[in-house]
Structures are given as C-alpha cells and as structure tokens.
C-alpha cells in the first residue's frame, strides 16, 4: 500500500488578531501548525499502512519553514517527506498549487491512495484535492468520513461520504484521491521515537527544476485568479440599540415590545 498525503502549513488562525488602528492582521508570534484537517489525512494513511504494510509519503508545497510541518508528520509516523519549495511556486492559487502537487506526485510515481484534508483553514477552499485528482485523471472521493473497505488486489475501495442529506456510500476504483472530514478518526500524537527520527531525518527539497512542470503554469504566473484588494470586513450598518430600564423585567418588556412592533416577531 502506497499512500501520499498532501499537507499544508497554516497559521493557527485562532490567534490572528486585527490591529485596531491599522486594521491589519497581527501575525507576529502566531504559531504555524499543520492544517488541522490534514492531521486526519495523515492518521488515515498511517492506519492503512498498519493494516496492509507499505509506505506513507507526506508532501507539502510552501516556504522553507513548512519543513517543520513535514517533520511533525514524520514524528506522527510517516515514512518519508518531501518539501516542494521554490520562489517560482510563490503566489500560487489553487489551480497552480494542484498542478505543482500533481507533478510531484507523478514524480513519486507509485501510489494507491492520495489523501488531502477537506480544506485548509487559511484559504478554506477545498479545491486543491479535486484539482490534484483532475490533474492526475484519477477518481476523487471528497468529504470521506469512513473507509468501509479497501482491496488492493481488486483495486476497489468503498467509502462513506458526508453529504448534506446524510452519508453516501460509494464504491470506486484505485488509485484514487480522498479528502477527509474530522469524523473519520482521531489523529495520534507524535511519539518520542518519532520525534527523534524527525530530528535526524533529511527531508529532500524539490524545486521547479526537479519537476516536469511548465514554468508558465506554476506560481503567480500560472494562477488564473488574482487577489486585487484586501480589506477588513465592512461594519454592519446601523448602531446597536442598547435597551435600558429600571429592572431586567422592564428591559425584557421593552425589547419584546420593540421586536413585535417592528414586525420582527409575528
């Protein structure tokens, strides 16, 4: 069983604060983490390896500091990691990201399942997984909450997907790309042994020269979309009418009356 897991390093957004005067994000001292959804992807790959043997390779495209996310994945138990890092990859939107990751996966070559998170918490798009699958012309199974069965001989997989109406049971063929939701498992913590291994391991860095990519299709150059403006969300129009009164009872009466008089409650 050969699994490839795509992980992204993201800022831990809980701690992103807006500078009230400048209206910009304060990111100093914000820790970087593995995109939380991707930890479920790593865990699921590790579970398959424990059951069937084989290898789990983790890849990430990002700046040199994304190395620490890959080391964390090794500490969790991944066998190998590769960092895709090159100034030429900078500014990639989801199209160019998927194109580059797909090129790296082609170079790795042998795989049965590719795992992604359902979405990255910084971009929140969930487009990269389907993008990679389409680039590689393999089946995609998104929002997977359970791998019911997998048969590497017959090259068949059966999963449950979380859709609006409930759970959809789907059978497909291998190789395929799976994006996982939280319900699929409970990710493990890194082990002491894993952490030691992660400290020692040499993680190769691939640049655009190492990949069979068209320079016009990577990074900002290859991205069909452009961010043209960034601003803080506009405030909601109007001001809050703070209800005052002698007692809570009276305040509640006033509010109830207003809501009914203005036909907000009918």
């Amino acid at each position: 069983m050969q699994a490839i897991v795509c992980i992204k390093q993201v800022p831990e957004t809980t701690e992103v604060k807006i500078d009230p005067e400048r209206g910009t994000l304060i990111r100093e001292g914000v820790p970087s983490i593995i995109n939380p959804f991707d930890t479920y992807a790593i865990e699921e790959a590790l579970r398959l390896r424990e059951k069937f043997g084989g290898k789990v390779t983790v890849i990430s495209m990002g700046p040199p500091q994304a190395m620490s996310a890959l080391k964390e994945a090794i500490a969790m138990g991944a066998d190998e990691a590769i960092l895709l890092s090159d100034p030429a990859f900078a500014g990639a939107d989801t199209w160019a990201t998927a194109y580059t990751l797909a090129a790296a996966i082609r170079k790795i070559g042998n795989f049965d399942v590719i795992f992604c998170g359902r979405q990255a918490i910084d971009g929140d798009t969930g487009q990269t997984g389907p993008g990679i699958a389409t680039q590689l012309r393999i089946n995609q199974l998104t929002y997977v909450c359970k791998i019911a069965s997998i048969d590497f001989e017959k090259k068949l997989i059966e999963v449950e997907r979380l859709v609006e109406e409930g759970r959809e049971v789907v059978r497909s063929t291998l190789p395929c790309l799976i994006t996982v939701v939280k319900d699929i498992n409970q990710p493990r913590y890194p082990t002491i042994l894993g952490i030691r291994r992660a400290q020692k391991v040499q993680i190769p860095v691939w640049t655009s020269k190492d990949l069979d990519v068209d320079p016009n299709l990577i990074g900002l150059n290859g991205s069909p979309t452009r961010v043209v403006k960034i601003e803080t969300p506009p405030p909601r129009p109007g001001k809050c009418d703070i209800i005052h009164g002698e007692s809570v009872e009276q305040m509640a009466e006033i509010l109830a009356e207003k809501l009914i008089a203005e036909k907000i409650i009918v």
Partner: protein
Amino acid sequence: MALLQINRELCTSCGACLQVCPFGALSLGSDAIIEVSELCNGCGACVPECPTGALSLPQVEKAETPDLEAYQGVWVWVEQCDGHAASISWEMVGEGRRLADRRGTTLTACVLGHQAESIAREAIAYGADRVILVDDPTLQIYRTDPYARCLVELVKKYRPEIFLLGASTRGRDLAGAVATYLYTGLTADCTGLEIEEGSNLLLQIRPAFGGNIMATIKCQNHRPQMATVRHHVFEMPVADPSRQGEIIREKPVMLEEEIATKVLDLIVEKSEVNLADARIIVSGGRGVKGPEGFNVIRELADVLGGAVGASRAAVDAGWISYAHQVGQTGRTVRPDLYIACGISGAIQHQAGMRTSKVIVAINKDPEAPIFKIADYGIVGDLFVVVPALTRALKKRLNR
C-alpha cells in the same frame, strides 16, 4: 517566498506601505529601508500606496484563454438530489439573474439529472432565460466524473463568461474538477459578487483568514470566471411560473460502463436541528456555562418557534452537538432574527450569522464585540434576562 520587489534606491522609508499590508509582511529594516518577509503572498495591496513607486510585483506573463470576447452569458449549475433541486441553486439563479441584467446578457441554468424536466421548468420560473438539460440515467445521482466531463463539454461548446455553483459538498466537488479541466480561475465561498465598472469583470469577494479580512478576486485572462457561494448568502428569489424560457437538450458524454464510481446507498440522517431554514434562531455560547444552561435558550426558542444555535466554544465543550454550531466551521445562517446569548461575537462566529436581518445580543460584558454588529442589546446576566424575555414574549404572543 516573498514576491514583492523593493527598489532600494527609491524607498524613502516613509512607512506608507507598512500601514496597508494585511499580512504584516513588511517592516523597517536596520538600514531604514523596507524589508519584506516570507509572510508576503503577493496580494499587491502595498504597491499603489508607495509614493515613490519603489514597490513592484513581478511581471506576469499571461496564459490566456484564447478569444475572451467569444465568452458570453451567465451560467448557474442547478444541483438536484432524488429529483428535487437544492434551494441553494435557486439562490444562485437569483444572483445570476441580477448579474446577467447588470451585464446586459442572458442567464442559463444547467440541469443534469434523470427525468429532470420539471426542474428545468422550475429554473425558468426562478429567473433563467434558458436551460440546458442533460437528461440521462447515468446522471440520476451526482458523481464527479460524468457530471464534470459533461459540464466541461458544454462550456467548450457554449462558452459562458461567468459560471456560478453552490458551495455545497457536491458543488465544491464538481467546481474543483471543472475549473481544473478548463484551466480557469475558481473562487470558493464568495460572500459578494459584482460586475466591475469598465472592465465588466466579475469581482469575487470572499472572507480569508477566518473572516479576518475580505479579499476581492478577479480572473482576468481565463474563462469562464467561476465561483461558488455558500447557502443563505444570497436571498431566495420568488418563482414566477408564468415566465417563459427555452429548454435545450444535450447528451451526456460518458457511458455507464466508463464510470468507475457507483453510489451504493444514501443513508439519510434526518437532523431535528434545522438551522438552515429557521426564521428565528436563539444561540448560546460559553456564557451558558453548561449543558443545562441551554434550557433557558431552548425555552425562548420554543416560544418563538425558532431553532437553537451555538458557538463553537459551547460545542467544543460538549454542551450541545455540532449540528447546532453557527460560524465559519459550522453553518451559515440568515434568519429574520438571531438572538445571541452569552456569545462574545468572535469573527469566526460572525462569519456564520452577520447577514441575519436583525441581531439581538444578550451579554453581561458591554464591551463584547457582538454589540458592534447587533441591532438590539441587553447588557446583563443571561440567566435572568433570557427567562424574563421568554415571559414577556409569552404574554404578548399569548403562547
């Protein structure tokens, strides 16, 4: 992977750019010249701010869709499950109608399904000028491959300028594949769409970094310009059954034997929590202090015939199930009335409820951010205020 280029000769270290960088990527270096860090993602917000023109982004070589002018009209994908259209699709048709009118062009709905002609007629009633209907047993249930390949062929044949899809699980699954095949831009989860004056390009506005910032995104050189939008971001249009429109029938592109994926079953889980359709929502946060605290919330919701919502803090604490969570990682809701009790109003919570028509906040901290977006507020202990409000409403509504 900083993209920004700084011309050291021109930089006067005035600091104008520091103010506008949304990512905090710029700083004044030791030699009083602006420095750029890895946090730069090339958004370009700083470039026009520099009075001396010292900042620039690398010139972009254009990989273009040939013949941009040939792409005309607005398209919406109509999602269906079990012969019923998803309401999110009608919201998209409503917004697509508005954009098509602004652009002075037509609105086309794409209906893929089996025995789906009634959905095609519904699409016209909701505002489509014409419907492309692909009716075939292979399309009865959504599957990525037959749907994506069919839409790709339709786009190649008819060349729409703008293509909108609902950001449901199926919509996201499909849009990601279609945009990749077509090599065009796709913007996820837009909260606003506009046509830019002059260029007539689609401006796609979406939250980023957990709603901390709003980004406007354009797709200049590729067609169609694709975007997904979440449920309840746009209003549901009113259907007019007397509207007339054209239905064009097209053929699927895959045979059943060529499709690797089979849907074996759909296990429907009826959730009793119907946040999405509730007209009134009463939500509780960390301030309710425990599972029992939700009793006062539930009583108020019952009097109003509303649903119970929650902040992530309350859900993570295990006081109430995830199905109730409102916000960036929960549901987006757009009720007529949203009553937030013991919720501070973090930006991620706001991301799921700020488009509610009327917001009422009950919180003991007068400085809580929720009051900044609320229409009415009571500063006080929710365990006293909420029951009092329940009593007052009960009396007035005779319930």
